[in-house]
């Protein structure tokens, strides 16, 4: 079974979801929890069986699908995808376990299980088309979750989410087909296998175009400024569980794809586009942080904060060195945990008050101290307090990018200021001060079911902040091989310089001060 564990991980939830149709709706929650516990256990087993010292792909599977066109069902994990898969399993588990009383709970759980299939599939796929299949398929359950259980604007939000990402990924598909065609021209056989593509060195001019095509698909998914506007709507309207999974896992698809596709396939283009993308990332960081500060709805604050954090992830990715990329991958996990938790927390208060407007709250720390504490922990993680999970990622991402540009890193570093501003302001509005609304006087503190989700997240937040090594180690190994690959493949002189040669060890670049600023 371990040989096919990835397929099992992908399709077990889907099969379970199909069987879910015959389960009575009163037992559905238990069924969902059972399935996701098994899935999570399998994911942990995967981690256990994973050899951290190997940088390449593990547990590979290959089944020909359309061999004449080079489409094969290829799966595999490395340090980059491993933890996101585990995170996906984990969030589905706590998502289902902490699911509040929802109408049509049966449909919801079935949808979530299907969603889990697509999420694991995206991160395990090593064939561009299979990747694309799961990538697109993940839109459908999310569309349904937002559209069926969302707020008043749910239809607008869900359709916007779907069409926006769909349009972007179709452009990406054209890019993939191009890539396959280049591979065909170079070798005479069709192949969509990513590992095959890695071996292909493209001329820089082609790289630029292909990079742009992939970029559109990924950037919308991330979402990068100025393609981010679907996100506030999606988060604003989605039910809690939808927001949690969207923020924790689905957004990571974009950034993951940058690392899996854009960087190793187009090293020269990555260097070429590094500055423009970094500038976009910085706009994302600062601009969306400011927009978050202006929000009146606490969920929108968290939503915009997601965009802001994704900016740091992008920046780390385009540091193009081991520190930055490792940091950005770690930050993906970190942001998944933290923003997932924050959305859960917003859901807690929404369940009690049926509003998310911050002016309706105030002084909640008096009546809900536990809630305030957990929110506080996540708040601090979100603003990147050291010894929380986010800091490791943010620190490494910024540190990595500093090698590429001092000024831009300085600007990006503003993240730690603006991030603190909106988060603290929101926290103050919600929790501090006297209680002004009578409705808030008798609010119940977090209950057991909610704690079931929040406590593990808090523990992870601190644990990986203090001791990131179990995660960072495997990530590092895989990232080193990717950076080395990029260095070897790079054709332009600048790219050779910008992308470090990992094997030779660090070359300390002394930057003359004049250039530094």
């Amino acid at each position, binding site marked *: 079974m371990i040989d096919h564990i990835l397929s099992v991980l992908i399709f077990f939830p889907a099969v379970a979801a199909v069987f879910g149709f015959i389960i009575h709706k009163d037992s559905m929650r238990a069924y969902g929890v059972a399935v996701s516990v098994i899935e999570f256990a399998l994911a942990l087993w995967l981690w256990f069986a994973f050899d951290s010292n190997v940088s390449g792909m593990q547990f590979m599977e290959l089944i*020909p699908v*359309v061999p004449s066109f080079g489409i094969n069902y290829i799966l595999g994990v490395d340090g980059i995808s491993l933890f996101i898969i585990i995170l996906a399993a984990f969030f589905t588990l706590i998502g289902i376990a902490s699911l509040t009383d929802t109408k049509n709970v049966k449909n919801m759980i079935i949808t979530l299980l299907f969603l889990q299939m697509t999420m694991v599939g995206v991160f395990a796929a090593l064939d561009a088309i299979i990747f694309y299949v799961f990538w*697109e398929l993940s839109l459908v359950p999310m569309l349904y979750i937002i559209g*069926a259980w969302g707020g008043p604007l*749910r239809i607008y939000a869900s359709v916007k989410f779907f069409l926006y990402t769909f*349009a972007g990924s179709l452009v990406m598909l*054209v890019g993939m*087909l191009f890539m396959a065609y280049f591979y065909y021209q170079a070798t005479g056989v069709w192949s969509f296998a990513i590992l095959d593509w890695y071996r292909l060195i493209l001329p820089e001019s082609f790289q630029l175009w292909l990079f742009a095509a992939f970029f559109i698909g990924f950037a919308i998914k991330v979402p990068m400024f100025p393609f981010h506007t679907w996100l506030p709507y999606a988060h604003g309207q989605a039910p809690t569980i939808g927001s949690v999974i969207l923020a924790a896992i689905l957004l990571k698809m974009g950034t993951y794809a940058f690392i899996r596709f854009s960087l190793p396939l187009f090293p020269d283009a990555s260097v070429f586009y590094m500055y423009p993308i970094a500038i976009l990332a910085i706009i994302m960081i600062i601009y969306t942080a400011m927009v978050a500060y202006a929000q009146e709805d606490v969920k929108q604050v968290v939503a915009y904060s997601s965009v802001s954090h994704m900016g740091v992830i992008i920046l780390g990715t385009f540091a193009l060195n081991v520190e930055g990329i490792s940091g950005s991958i770690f930050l993906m996990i970190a942001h998944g945990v933290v923003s997932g938790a924050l959305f859960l927390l917003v859901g807690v208060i929404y369940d009690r008050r049926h509003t998310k407007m911050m002016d309706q709250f105030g002084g909640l720390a008096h009546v809900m101290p536990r809630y305030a504490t957990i929110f506080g922990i996540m708040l601090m993680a979100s603003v990147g307090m050291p010894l929380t999970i986010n800091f490791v990622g943010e620190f490494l991402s910024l540190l990595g990018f500093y090698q590429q540009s001092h000024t831009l890193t300085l600007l990006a570093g503003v993240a730690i200021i603006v991030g603190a501003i909106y988060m603290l302001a929101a926290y103050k509005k919600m929790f501090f001060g006297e209680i002004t609304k009578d409705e808030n006087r008798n609010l119940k503190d977090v209950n057991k079911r909610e704690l079931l989700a929040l406590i593990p997240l808090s523990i992870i937040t601190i644990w990986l902040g203090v001791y990131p090594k179990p995660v960072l180690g495997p990530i590092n190994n895989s990232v080193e091989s990717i950076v080395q690959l990029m260095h070897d493949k790079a054709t332009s002189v600048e790219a050779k310089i910008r992308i470090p040669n990992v094997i030779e060890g660090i070359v300390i670049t002394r930057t003359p001060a004049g250039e530094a600023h």
Partner: protein
Amino acid sequence: MLAPVNVSLESLNLMTLAPMLIPIVGALLILVIDLFKSNLDKTLYVGVSLLFLFMDFFALYDASTIFAQDGTMLGVFNVMLIDGLALLSQFIIVIASMLFIPLALTHKRFHEFSYPEFFALFLFMIGGFQFMVASDNLILIFVGLETASLALYTMIAMHNRDKSFEAAVKYFTMGALAAGFFSFGAMVFYALTGSIEINQIAAVLAGNGYADIGYVLVGVVFMLASFGFKLSIVPFHTWAPDVYEGSSAAMAGYMSIVPKIAAFVVAMRLFEFLIHSGVIWLEVVLYAFVVITMTAANLWALVQTDVKRMLAYSSISHAGFVMAAILIGTTQANSALFLYWILFSFTNLGSFSMLWISRQKHLPDGQSSDHSYDKFAGMIKTSPMAAVVMALFMLSLAGLPPFALFWGKLYMISSAVTGGYTVLALIMALNSAIAGYYYLKLIVYMFMKEPVVGVNGEVYVSNATNALKTIIGIAAVGTVFAIIAVNPLLEFITAFVYNSGY
């Protein structure tokens, strides 16, 4: 004086006629049966039709094994041309017809199916289409085309509603005009080359180096107009939405598949040699047609309030999409055309069948058309299974992986990329995104709104019988598990297309 005709039966190669003759014999048989005993149940006719279609299928299978060994066959004074395109398209025609004909076994009683003539016409029509695709003689193409079309007009009218007659009249009149265009175009080619066989025309034109390019283009224009009508290329598409709306859903589904593949094959035969000979004008015009048809039809589909009409526009858009294959003209593109169309057949058959089973004798309360979006509101609550299946078809039409049509789109866009039409590939991709909206709209209605009509869900399956459900089941399975079939299909198609020299 003409010399006495002296041909050996061998050289006629009558085998090539067998697939077309079988449905015609079947049609005649049905008429004969009716002569002897009228008022037989429609199941009999459905059965007989299916039987003959199966025979047709085996005849085709037989022919295709011969083709696989010996290559292209000519027959009957070299009028018949059995090549890969002919075989593939006939397979599509016959299989789609086999899937269509059980749709006559509805729960509610519909006027047309009580006439045996309907089934006879149906079989005649199939014969007509088969002639059309299996020849490169313009006369035979014309005859096949008209046989099929006339039968089709009649069948539409037999639905016996005001709208059906209106649709039939519109379709008929425009069809007559298109026939005029076709014959004029054929005349121009005949005048230029002295031949009405496409390969002869091509040879003569190539021989004189397209000296009279202006006149050639005049001929091409009329042919384009004629096939533009059949393929519903903007601005020759105007019949399509009305005809789809006026005819029964089953008929509309059928029309969106079978006549078009026949027309595509002829268009391939007729236009591709011109493009390959460097007639830039045609390339430019086709490019424009492809883009305009895809885009405009999508935009119109966006604003529809009736699902069937929306599907009509969507079919136009899909046709435009597939037109690109003719423009690109590589083996991959032509294979993509067939692959796309096969996968499209399953999906579209399914979606129209879903409309068909929800068809009532009378308009739903408060609705101005049979299948308005409102009718499907909240379907997931009242009739979840049907809603899920319908959603599957919509997602497939939208090109969402891994459902059937995605693989067609994938291969088609890939052929555009490979053929050097990068911008076209992008336009195709973006059009798929636009199209996503109106397919999604139905899903939104079904899954995210509160029911408006038919709270008990009865309305969605009012016309359902086991036969219809089976057809939908087949379509659904074909849509969902298309991925398994793609590879064998692709290998089969590519071999056939390649061996026909396209």
